[in-house]
Each structure stands twice: as structure tokens, then as C-alpha cells.
């Protein structure tokens, strides 16, 4: 799966519009993921996962920052996320299926916060982008 020039442009524009609120989108996506897919909570036994949790907000900020970084280096996502890829392979070892779940919740977060942003074309590009990010983060698993 390859990101076309149009996809890259859509992704950059989308994150441009999300702008400084990316942190909230990240936290929102995580909150939604924990609600819709309770099994994902197994990776966070050390977190307070109650509503408004500062830990979830903090982690959402990290997730968002990584997505922004990938969007800013959309021509070389693997390079941009290389360290994160190592971390996931060596330490975190989140099962690959979970990246799709977070991706779905990030798209829903965008859809609820900025519905007009998520045209079918942008939806397609963002979905591809999130898949690519998941692929990079799991690339060194074995």
C-alpha cells in the first residue's frame, strides 16, 4: 500500500487543520479505543483509565505528536518513526491488530470534532496513512 501524492497532500492538509488541537484528538482517540475495545486496556494496567485521566491525556499527547511527526515527514514515515518502531518491537510489543483499532478511533475523533474535514477522499487518505504508521511501528517485530 503506497501513499499517492494526493494522499500525502490530504494528510498534510488534514493535520494542518487539526493543528494545535492534535493533543485533544489523541486523548479522544484513546478514550474511545478503551471504551469500544476494552481488551486494549490490557496494555495499560498501570494507568488510571477513568474519564478525564491525566495519564490518558498525557499519552494521547504522545500519540498525537507521533502522528504529527509522521505527517510532517510523510515521504519517509519509516525514518521519522524509526525510534518508535524500535520501542514497539523491543519493549512495548503491542499486538499488531491494535493499531487498526486505534486508527478507527482516531478517524472517529476527527469525524466528531471536524466532520467537514473528513470528506470521503480525505477519509481514504487518512486511513491509508494510519495503516502505514501501524505497519512501520510493527515492522521490526520479527
Amino acid at each position: 500500500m503506497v501513499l499517492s501524492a494526493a494522499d500525502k497532500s490530504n494528510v498534510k492538509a488534514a493535520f494542518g487543520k487539526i493543528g494545535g488541537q492534535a493533543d485533544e484528538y489523541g486523548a479522544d482517540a484513546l478514550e474511545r479505543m478503551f471504551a469500544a475495545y476494552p481488551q486494549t486496556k490490557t496494555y495499560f494496567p498501570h494507568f488510571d483509565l477513568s474519564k478525564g485521566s491525566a495519564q490518558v491525556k498525557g499519552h494521547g499527547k504522545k500519540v498525537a505528536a507521533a502522528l504529527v511527526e509522521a505527517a510532517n515527514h510523510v515521504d519517509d514515515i519509516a525514518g521519522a518513526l524509526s525510534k518508535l518502531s524500535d520501542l514497539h518491537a523491543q519493549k512495548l510489543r503491542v499486538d499488531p491488530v491494535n493499531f487498526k483499532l486505534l486508527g478507527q478511533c482516531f478517524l472517529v475523533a476527527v469525524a466528531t470534532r471536524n466532520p467537514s474535514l473528513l470528506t470521503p477522499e480525505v477519509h481514504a487518505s487518512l486511513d491509508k496513512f494510519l495503516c502505514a504508521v501501524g505497519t512501520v511501528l510493527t515492522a521490526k517485530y520479527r
Partner: protein
Amino acid sequence: MVHWSAEEKQLITSVWAKLSVEECGAEALARLLIVYPWTQRFFSNFGNLSSPTAIIGNPKVRAHGKKVLTSFGEAIKNLDNLKGTYSKLSELHCDKLHVDPENFRLLGDILVIVLATHLAKDFTPACQATWQKLVGVVAHALAHKYH
């Protein structure tokens, strides 16, 4: 049998009441064909699917989308017997249409996103969780008669 809490049933029916089945159905199917283009394999007789604009404007896509989501409405009326409700449709999708059940999961996720764009902030995490559960259960029911 799937258990639905009173809260879940409320979240399902209240969202459903706000929807235009025709609009949301058309949009969900169009997005499925756009976001996951390989799903077009089932619709070779639908005419022009060459671009997002063509897909969105395609009258067969709109009509079929409406049909699919109308059927979803039946599920909502029969939350306590989804396997029974979808028994014949399941056989049809296996024996005649030859649709990989993975496609039901893809469409379900797309439907959730369409609902999210329409309901915006009203589509709370609890609401999404309930609807992700519903689309998952519908997908499972539609796959149940596969052999």
C-alpha cells in the same frame, strides 16, 4: 446470545431515530468503495466507479446503500435475535453473492465513521462503543450461516 443493556438499547434507538437511512446508507456504501477500493469487486455491474465523485453520484450505489442500511433497521428491531433475523441474508451472501465476511466488518467500521460525521459531539465514546458492538454483532450474524 448477545446481551444489550438498557443504556445500549437507548443509544442505538436514539441514534437511529436521528438518521436519514437513505443518506447514511448511500454515504456508507460510497465510502466503503472509495476507502477500500477492492470492495468494488462485488459491483462490476454498477457502472461508473472510476472516481470518488463518480461513486458518490452513482445511483446504483445510492440505491444499494439505502437497501443495506434499511436491512440494518431490521436488526435494530430484533436485537435479541440477530442470528435468526439475518439467517436468510447470511445464506444469500455465502451461496449466491460469495462475499467474504471481512467486508461486513469493513462496512461496519465505515458506518460508525459516517454516524460520527453526522452526530459530531453527540457521538460520545459510549455511543461509539455501543455501535461498534452492534456492527460487530451484525457482521457476525451475517457470517453465521457460511459454510
